[in-house]
């Protein structure tokens, strides 16, 4: 495989009259990810890292990675990191945060991990108002194990374990996590965003930032649900997959703020 001829190296291009508009966030590690091309896990990682940079909390951040495609997320962030058992990230994060109250602890979880096997742990972390932040990747499928039905798989969606399309009468209805967790008093921030285009990505980042601010202010449990794509298991190109997020997922999973406690609203207002 030939290496590239047109490698654009930094040294050639640094000019005093240019300013840096965007650079790779520091809270990301140098390691290359193993994600499939165009997988929005990468976008979510980047946004979190940007927020950690902006809040200046990389040094006190602790990531709890899930079991799912993002199982190795701790390799991709340059922060302390742990790998939880499938679904148990919020419990592990609870243990970490309780004995490290000054740190910034966040879990990063897929929909199989959080909504299916781990629903008890995330609900109870929210019930307790655990001061952690949850980044929740809803890609409507079990990515890592090869595309089985998730609790968030939408009606009629074909997966390897719902070969005729999800039949809600037999297998249940898509779960709305942001809404569900917003109903718990310990939750101070619960919103849904999407990663299907740049406008929505920018909005998603804002939400992630507020979610971490909620933790920094010691208010309680915060979660950002991100509608994401899995081009590989959906059998689509990355760009088609984002269109599918927009056209099929967003209508099912309305974007919005399901809970923002007053303290956060006030803070936002002041800015």
């Amino acid at each position, binding site marked *: 495989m030939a*290496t590239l001829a047109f490698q*654009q190296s930094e040294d050639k291009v640094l000019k005093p009259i*240019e300013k840096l*508009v*965007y650079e790779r966030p520091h809270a990301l590690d140098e390691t290359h990810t193993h994600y499939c091309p165009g*997988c929005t896990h990468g976008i979510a990682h980047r946004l979190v890292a940007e927020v950690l940079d902006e809040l200046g909390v990389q040094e006190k951040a602790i990531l709890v990675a899930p079991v799912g495609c993002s199982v190795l997320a701790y390799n991709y962030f340059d922060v302390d990191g742990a790998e939880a058992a499938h679904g148990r990230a919020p419990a592990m994060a609870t243990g970490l945060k309780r004995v490290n109250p000054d740190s910034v602890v966040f879990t990063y979880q897929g929909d199989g991990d959080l909504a299916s096997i781990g629903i008890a742990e995330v609900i109870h972390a929210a019930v307790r108002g655990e001061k952690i932040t949850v980044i929740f990747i809803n890609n409507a499928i079990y990515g890592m194990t090869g595309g089985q039905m998730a609790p968030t798989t939408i009606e009629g969606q074909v997966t390897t374990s719902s070969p005729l399309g999800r039949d809600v009468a037999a297998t249940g209805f898509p779960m709305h996590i942001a809404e569900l967790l917003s109903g718990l008093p310990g939750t101070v921030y619960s919103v849904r965003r999407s990663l299907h285009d740049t406008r929505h990505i920018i909005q998603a980042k804002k939400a992630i930032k507020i979610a971490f601010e909620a933790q920094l202010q010691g208010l309680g449990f915060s979660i950002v649900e991100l509608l994401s794509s899995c*081009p590989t298991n959906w059998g689509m190109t990355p*760009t088609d997959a984002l269109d599918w997020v927009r056209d099929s997922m967003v209508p099912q999973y309305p974007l919005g703020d399901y809970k923002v406690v007053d303290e956060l609203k006030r803070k936002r207002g002041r800015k």
Partner: protein
Amino acid sequence: MAKGRVVIDVERCKGCELCIQACPQDVLTLSDEFNSKGYRPVFLMEHENECTGCALCAVACPDACITVYREIPQKKARPAPSAAAAD
């Protein structure tokens, strides 16, 4: 229009085309060659030279392989010694 420039980390790029899709100026395209991972990375078609430095490509990139620069608009603008031109 502001003038911008992007630098792609070609070894990191997976050729997913999300940046191409995101670019309002249509100045990104896939290379014909492969990087060492077997992907065809993206590059900035510099001859088009219409990049505005809006950074939307970087916002869209899952692999954080895009660095974006923008020229600083200066009252007394003297033509910048373009690196691309020097190439």
